[in-house]
């Protein structure tokens, strides 16, 4: 028995999907992660300067997000992201300017034209579902979308993200139950950063792995190092294959850490030690991936600098665009409540 397990693991490792990624693909991952990070860092700066009232950060979460995006077909598969998925939505086709326009509540914000808080991404053309603030509501909605894809006979896959704390909500349970009952082309990615704001995971649940919850729904459950982009890619690749082939749903738990406070309104020093944060900074997914890329000779100091410069230039331009963009007209407030009424004849 032990032998079989080892063997299958070995086979998997030898033939890891990430082994088939080209250098260009790997570089693209890296660039997207760096871009996400720079957009995120700039948002913090704008907040601290009093130019943006609120920011919620994805720093530290980039590996699972960028890896997952790479296994999907943007505009074909459906993504229900959550508020930390900046790098995810960038990888799916949204832009830094899209983010900054939202950050500043500008009319051009494609997610909601400034109606919603920042980082509440949405884009129908890209099939990126609209994020609302109440957590976990997106899980059963995503199950419904996956069911529609299946009933329609397509091979679309639906991916939904949330934090580990949010798995305590009934919505999570109900959504995953549907995914199991209907064997849906559905992947639920739990970005387990070990805290729900200040509440540590031991106060949220009594299981070691969130992925163990998959058993309750008869679906596959996988734990992955959420800071290891290639491991994330492998796990997501298999989950997508499973979904695409009609073999059912997967709960992917990406173990990671929120390197920043919960949001710009939070002060995390009240509930966790600086040592803990510093320890995790050493496992920063970008640093880890950089090391691997250096090791494989895919980047060097020069290229790294070039990429940084490129990212900063992108961010500068996007910020400038957003800052210069107009606010929505106040008449917008009462628009888009209902669609136009059909021109019914009186009866």
């Amino acid at each position, binding site marked *: 028995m032990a032998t079989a397990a080892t063997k299958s693991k070995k086979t998997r490792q030898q033939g890891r999907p990430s082994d088939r990624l080209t250098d260009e693909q790997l570089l693209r991952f890296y660039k997207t992660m760096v871009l996400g990070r720079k957009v995120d860092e700039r948002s913090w700066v704008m907040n601290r300067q009093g130019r943006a009232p609120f920011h919620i950060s994805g720093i530290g979460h980039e590996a699972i997000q960028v890896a997952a995006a790479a296994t999907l077909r943007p505009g074909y598969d*459906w993504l229900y992201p959550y508020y930390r998925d900046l790098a995810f939505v960038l990888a799916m086709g949204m832009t830094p300017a899209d983010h900054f326009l939202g950050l500043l509540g500008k009319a051009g914000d*494609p*997610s*909601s*034209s400034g*109606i*919603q808080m920042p980082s*509440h991404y*949405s*884009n*129908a053309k890209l099939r990126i*579902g*609209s994020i*609302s603030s*109440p957590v976990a*509501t997106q*899980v*059963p*909605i*995503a*199950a*419904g*979308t*996956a*069911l*529609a*894809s299946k*009933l*329609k006979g397509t091979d679309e896959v639906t991916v939904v993200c949330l934090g580990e704390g949010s798995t305590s909500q*009934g*919505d999570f349970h*109900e*959504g995953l*139950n*549907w995914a199991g*009952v209907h064997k849906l082309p559905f992947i639920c990615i739990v970005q387990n950063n070990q805290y729900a704001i200040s509440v540590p995971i031991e106060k949220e649940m009594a299981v070691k792995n969130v992925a163990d919850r998959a058993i309750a729904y008869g679906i596959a459950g996988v734990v992955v190092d959420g800071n290891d982009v290639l491991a994330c890619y492998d796990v997501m690749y298999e989950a997508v294959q499973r979904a695409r082939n009609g073999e059912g749903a997967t709960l992917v738990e990406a173990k990671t850490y929120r390197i920043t406070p919960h949001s710009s309104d939070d002060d995390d020093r009240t509930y966790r030690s600086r040592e803990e944060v510093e320890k995790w900074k050493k496992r920063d997914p970008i640093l880890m991936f950089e090391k691997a890329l250096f090791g494989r000779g895919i980047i060097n100091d020069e290229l790294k600098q070039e990429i940084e410069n490129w990212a900063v230039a992108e961010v500068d331009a996007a910020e400038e665009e957003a800052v210069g963009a107009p606010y929505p007209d106040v008449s*917008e407030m009462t*628009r*888009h*409540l*209902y*669609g136009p*009424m*059909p021109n*019914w*004849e*009186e*009866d």
Partner: protein
Amino acid sequence: MAIMNNIEALRETLRQEMERDPRVIIAGEDVGPRGGVFRATQGLYQQFGEKRVIDTPLAELSIVATGIGMALTGYFKPIVEIQFADFIFPAFNQILSEAARMRYRTRGDWTVPIIIRAPYGGGVSGGLYHSQSVEAFFAHIPGLYVVAPTTPYDIKGMLRAALQLDDPVLFFEHKKTYRLIKGEVPEEDYVVPIGKAAMRREGDDLTVISYGLAMHDSVKAADIVAAEGISADVIDLRTLRPLDKETILNSVKKTGKVLIVHEDNPTVSVGSEVAAIIGQEAFEYLDGPITRLTPPDVPAVPFSHPLQDAFMLNPEKIAAAMRELAAY
């Protein structure tokens, strides 16, 4: 033209619309082989199969949420059934925070064309949790349509209208009227516009504004007092959000007196809103207090028969209130 009761009109309209539009699908508890606990979907599973008539897990939150998720794709127009309106509350957050807000928060980029059907109302020995009127909660929510048709004609016409909208519609059906109320239903297609009230009786002395089972009782009450020389407009609101202010105000301006009648408990109700509209916009035309008649302000209909009878409105109670107001 066939004579049908409310449940037959509902079922036949569902069947016709499913035949017409393959995007229409039904989901809910026991809607499949069982045909629904009120038989609203009887025969549809057999006709359309399990991919279009879906028996769901017992979980209203996800019945609505998966409906939202299906509607978002544009592939389907889900009609989801909440078995009793009393059990819609687990789904309240999904309806309010997701379905009702999607268009507004995405500026129309995403829309949620879903119909949520729910049998409501008392008089059926259902006790506290199988008798509630729940419309007030939803009538408060921008982004929703809330309808409560209670004639077979309106049920067909408003269900067809709802299917033509691109926004979420709460479709409340008074369960006591399912078999009680009969009427003619044309074979041909027609819609009853959402947002338009109906004048069920016309008169000059006062206006009765109502909906649901109470509207049918109000019509009977109007007949009773007509014999005594009191003539009344009886308005069937039919749509509870948005309210048909024009019909309401025109009638009140004509009669100068208004009696608002509904089965829901009075505090912060649809009746409160109707009263507030009249108090603000027809103030100068009023010849008497804006009067409301409802059951007492208690949670819902008690089970025990004497209490249920005392709770429910009826033509006599309404006629008494009409007489009093007419004499004011």
